[in-house]
C-alpha cells in the first residue's frame, strides 16, 4: 500500500532529480526578486511562517538550544523542495499524455529541518518536517543527546577545520523560476513544441494515428543554513529534466507499422524555464531525433569482439562515465578513509596521507578539476552545507593525485599534509545533503577533465589511430567497491572498429576492462574544448542512503593498449 516516493524511485521512473513539490507562497523570501506564482498565490500558506525573518528565528532558536545543551558546534538547515511534473502532447493518440489528453500534472512538496550537533568528535542528528518554534529545541536537544551518547561510547579526536562565518542570500543569476509560469502556459507550450515535429512525421509516414509528448519536471530547492560559528545564509537553485516522445501507428493491412522515439530534452540540468522555453531549440531537437529514426544510418555490418589490447578512443560521453566511475567517488576523502565501508563503497586511494601530492594516477595529460561554481551545473552553490565557500581545485594535476574532496570534518585528517605544505587546514567545500532530512556529508562536486589546448575532436583521435576500437556510447558501466577496477561497454554500447583512421564495422559484446590508474596513465591524447560534453551524475552514499547530483564534463580520450573483453563470454 505504501507509495513512498523516493528520489531514487523517481529517477528510476525516468524522470528528474529530486522529488516533492507543490505550491504555496515561498517561505524563504529574500532569495530573489520573483513574486509568488499565480498558482501558489491562490493557495493559502503551507506553513504559518511568512517571511525570511521567521525562518531565521527558527534557525536561531535551534542554534541557541543546541549551544545551551552543550554542543561545541551545531548547525541547522531548513529546506523546502517543490517539484511539478507536466506531460502534454499533441496528435491523435489519447494515451499516457500523448495526443490531446494531458498527463496529470504531479505536484510534490517536502519541508525539512535538520539539526546536527558535534560533541567530542561525534555527531548527533535530528530532523523532521515541522517548522515550528516548539520543534526547534526538541530537535536540538535530541541531536545533542545523540552526540553525547556517541562520544561516550566511542570518542574520536577530530577537530573541525576552521571556517569563516558567512551571511547572505544566493540564487543563480538569469534563471526564470518555472513555478512562476502558470501551468496552462507550460502545458500549452509543451503541446506546441510536440505538435509541429510529430505532425510532420505523421504526414511523411501517412500514418493513421500519431502523437508527440513532452514530459518535463521542474524542481526548486530552497534552503537556509545557520551555524554556531555565526553563519546564516539562504540559497535557492533549480533543476529541469525533460523527455520528448514521438509515436505513430499505421493500421492499414498493407502498410502496418508502429514506431516510438524518445530523446532526453533538456536532460537533467540546473536551469529553469529560460532554458526549456526556447521553442526553436526544443523543436529542432525533437525533429532531429525523429529524422534520425526516419533516415537511419546505413546498416553497418557487425563482427564479434576479438579480445585483447587495443588503442581505444572514447567519445566525450564515454569519458564522462569513466571519469565518474574512476576518479569521481574515489577521491572523496570519507570513502578513502573507509567511512563508506558499510554503505556506498570505499576507494582504491586508501592511504590518503602517503598518496596526496605524490601518487601518479594518470598521464601528464590528465588534469581533473572540481568546482561548485559553473552556471547550470548540478552541484553549483554559493556556500556548501557547512557554510564554506567551495574551492575550485585540481583533484588530479598533470596526472598526480593533488587533492581529495573534503568537508570541515574530513579535512582535519589531512592536517599533517597541510602542515608539511605550509598551508592551513581547510575544507574544500564538498559538504552537502539530499535535504535537511538527511545528515550533511561529503558529496561529489562538478568534475571536469581539462581539455587539450589543441582543438582536436573525436574524429581527429580516430583519424590518428591505425588499428583500434572506438567506444561511441558507454552502454552499461560498473565499478568495484573501491572504484579500482571496472568496465564500460557491453550490451547497449555502440562500439566500432578503427581501421586506418576510419570507423569500421560494429563490434558486438566489446567491453573496456580497466584498472583505474593504469587506464588514466595510458591516456595519450585528449580532445579540445569544442569536443567537451556534460551530463548529470549521481552520488549515492550514507546510511540512511542519500543521493545528490553533480555534472561531469569530459572530452574524448585516446588510451594506449587498453584491455578489451567480451561481455558475452560465459565461463
Amino acid at each position, binding site marked *: 500500500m505504501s507509495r513512498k516516493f523516493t528520489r531514487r524511485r523517481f529517477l528510476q521512473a525516468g524522470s528528474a532529480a529530486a522529488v516533492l513539490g507543490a505550491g504555496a507562497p515561498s517561505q524563504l523570501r529574500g532569495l530573489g526578486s520573483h513574486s509568488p506564482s499565480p498558482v501558489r498565490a491562490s*493557495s493559502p500558506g503551507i506553513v*504559518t511562517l511568512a517571511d525570511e525573518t521567521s525562518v531565521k528565528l527558527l534557525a536561531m532558536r535551534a542554534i541557541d538550544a543546541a549551544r545551551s545543551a552543550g554542543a561545541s558546534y551545531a548547525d541547522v538547515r531548513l529546506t523546502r523542495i517543490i517539484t511539478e511534473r507536466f506531460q502534454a502532447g499533441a496528435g491523435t493518440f489519447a494515451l499516457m499524455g500523448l495526443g490531446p489528453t494531458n498527463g496529470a500534472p504531479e505536484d*510534490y512538496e517536502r519541508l525539512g529541518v535538520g539539526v546536527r550537533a558535534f560533541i567530542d568528535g561525534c555527531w*548527533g542528528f535530528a*530532523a*523532521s518536517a515541522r517548522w515550528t518554534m516548539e520543534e526547534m529545541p526538541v530537535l536540538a536537544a535530541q541531536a545533542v543527546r545523540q552526540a553525547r551518547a556517541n562520544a561516550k561510547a566511542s570518542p574520536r579526536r577530530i577537530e573541525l577545520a576552521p571556517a569563516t562565518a558567512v551571511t547572505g542570500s544566493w540564487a543563480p543569476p538569469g534563471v526564470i523560476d518555472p513555478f512562476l509560469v502558470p501551468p496552462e502556459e507550460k502545458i500549452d507550450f509543451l503541446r506546441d513544441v510536440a505538435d509541429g515535429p510529430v505532425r510532420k512525421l505523421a504526414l511523411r509516414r501517412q500514418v493513421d494515428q500519431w502523437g508527440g509528448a513532452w514530459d518535463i519536471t521542474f524542481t526548486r530547492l530552497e534552503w537556509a543554513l545557520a551555524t554556531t560559528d555565526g553563519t546564516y545564509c539562504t540559497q535557492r537553485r533549480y533543476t529541469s529534466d525533460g523527455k520528448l516522445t514521438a509515436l505513430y501507428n499505421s493500421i492499414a493491412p498493407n502498410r502496418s507499422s508502429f514506431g516510438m522515439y524518445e530523446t532526453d530534452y533538456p536532460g537533467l540540468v540546473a536551469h529553469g524555464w529560460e532554458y526549456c522555453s526556447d521553442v526553436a531549440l526544443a523543436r529542432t531537437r525533437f525533429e532531429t531525433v525523429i529524422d534520425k529514426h526516419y533516415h537511419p544510418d546505413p546498416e553497418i555490418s557487425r563482427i564479434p569482439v576479438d579480445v585483447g589490447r587495443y588503442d581505444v578512443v572514447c567519445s566525450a560521453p564515454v569519458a564522462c562515465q569513466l571519469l565518474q566511475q574512476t576518479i569521481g567517488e574515489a577521491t572523496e576523502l570519507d570513502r578513502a578513509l573507509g567511512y563508506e565501508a558499510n554503505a556506498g563503497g570505499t576507494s582504491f586511494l586508501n592511504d590518503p596521507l602517503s598518496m596526496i601530492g605524490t601518487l601518479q594516477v594518470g598521464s601528464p595529460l590528465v588534469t581533473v578539476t572540481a568546482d561548485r561554481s559553473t552556471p547550470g551545473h548540478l552541484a553549483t552553490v554559493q556556500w556548501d552545507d557547512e557554510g564554506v565557500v567551495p574551492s575550485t581545485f585540481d583533484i588530479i594535476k598533470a596526472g598526480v593525485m593533488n587533492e581529495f574532496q573534503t568537508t570541515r570534518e574530513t579535512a582535519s585528517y589531512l592536517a599533517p599534509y597541510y602542515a608539511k605544505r605550509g598551508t592551513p587546514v581547510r575544507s574544500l567545500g564538498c559538504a552537502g545533503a539530499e535535504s535537511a*532530512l538527511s545528515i550533511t556529508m561529503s558529496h561529489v562536486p562538478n568534475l571536469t577533465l581539462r581539455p587539450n589546448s589543441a582543438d582536436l575532436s573525436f574524429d581527429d583521435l580516430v583519424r590518428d589511430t591505425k588499428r583500434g576500437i572506438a567506444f561511441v556510447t558507454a552502454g552499461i558501466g560498473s565499478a568495484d567497491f573501491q572504484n579500482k577496477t571496472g568496465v564500460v561497454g557491453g550490451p547497449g554500447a555502440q562500439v566500432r572498429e578503427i581501421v586506418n583512421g576510419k570507423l569500421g564495422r560494429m563490434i558486438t559484446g566489446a567491453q573496456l576492462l580497466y584498472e583505474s590508474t593504469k587506464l588514466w596513465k595510458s591516456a595519450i591524447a585528449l580532445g579540445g574544448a569544442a569536443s567537451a560534453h556534460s551530463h548529470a551524475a549521481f552520488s549515492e552514499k550514507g546510511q*540512511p542512503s542519500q543521493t545528490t547530483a553533480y555534472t561531469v564534463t569530459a572530452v574524448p580520450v585516446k588510451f594506449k593498449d587498453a584491455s578489451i573483453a567480451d561481455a558475452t563470454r560465459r565461463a
Partner: protein
Amino acid sequence: MTASVPHVATEDRGDGRFLSQADCVALIKRANGYAVGGGGTELSIESSWTGNIRWARNAVLSSGDVRENDVWLTRIVRGARSSVVLNVVDDAAIHAAVRRAERFMAFQTEHYEITNRKLPDEPYAHPDIWSAPTYDLNAERLAESMQRLSRAAVSAGMLSAGYENAIFNTISAGMSRNTVSQAQGIARTVRRVMTTCHSPR
C-alpha cells in the same frame, strides 16, 4: 457508514514520533472538509520515526532521529483524478494541498465509469509485529549496541563498519466522501543491522 478503528495502545504512546491510526483517520476527515466541488478525497499516508546509528573504523560517525510523513492526497471528481504529495500535515498544508489538487483537476479528463470507485472498508491490522524494546532504542542504547557489534572486530585488530536502525511507521489509506470515512492501515516495526569488517588496509 463509519469504519471502526480499534485503538491499539502499544502503537499510540502519544509521544508524537509518528502519526497514530486515529491521527490518520482525522487527517482524512480534515482533507475532506476542505474539499470543494463534490467527489471524493483519497489519502495514502506513511508516517514514520527512524532511529539509527552509523559507525566505521570502530568509531561512531553519526546517529540520527528522523520523523517523517509521506501523504499522497488525491481529489477525484467525476472520475478525474489529481494528486498532490506532501510531508506536512498541519491544517494550512492540507488545505493548500486540497486546493492545488483541485486546481490541477482542470487539466484532467473525466471518466464517469469510475466515479463510484471506493476503497474496501477494512479495519486496521493489529500491530502484532510491534516491538516495545525496539521502540525504546534511544541514543544511549544504540551507542551500546554499536559497541557490542564492533567488539569482535576490535579484539581481532580489524576495523568494523556498520549501521543499525529502527523504523516504526503507520501506513494508512482512506477515502472520505462528505462525512463518511473509510480507512485501512498497518503499523509495523523494522529493526535492521548491517555490518562489515575489514583489515586496517
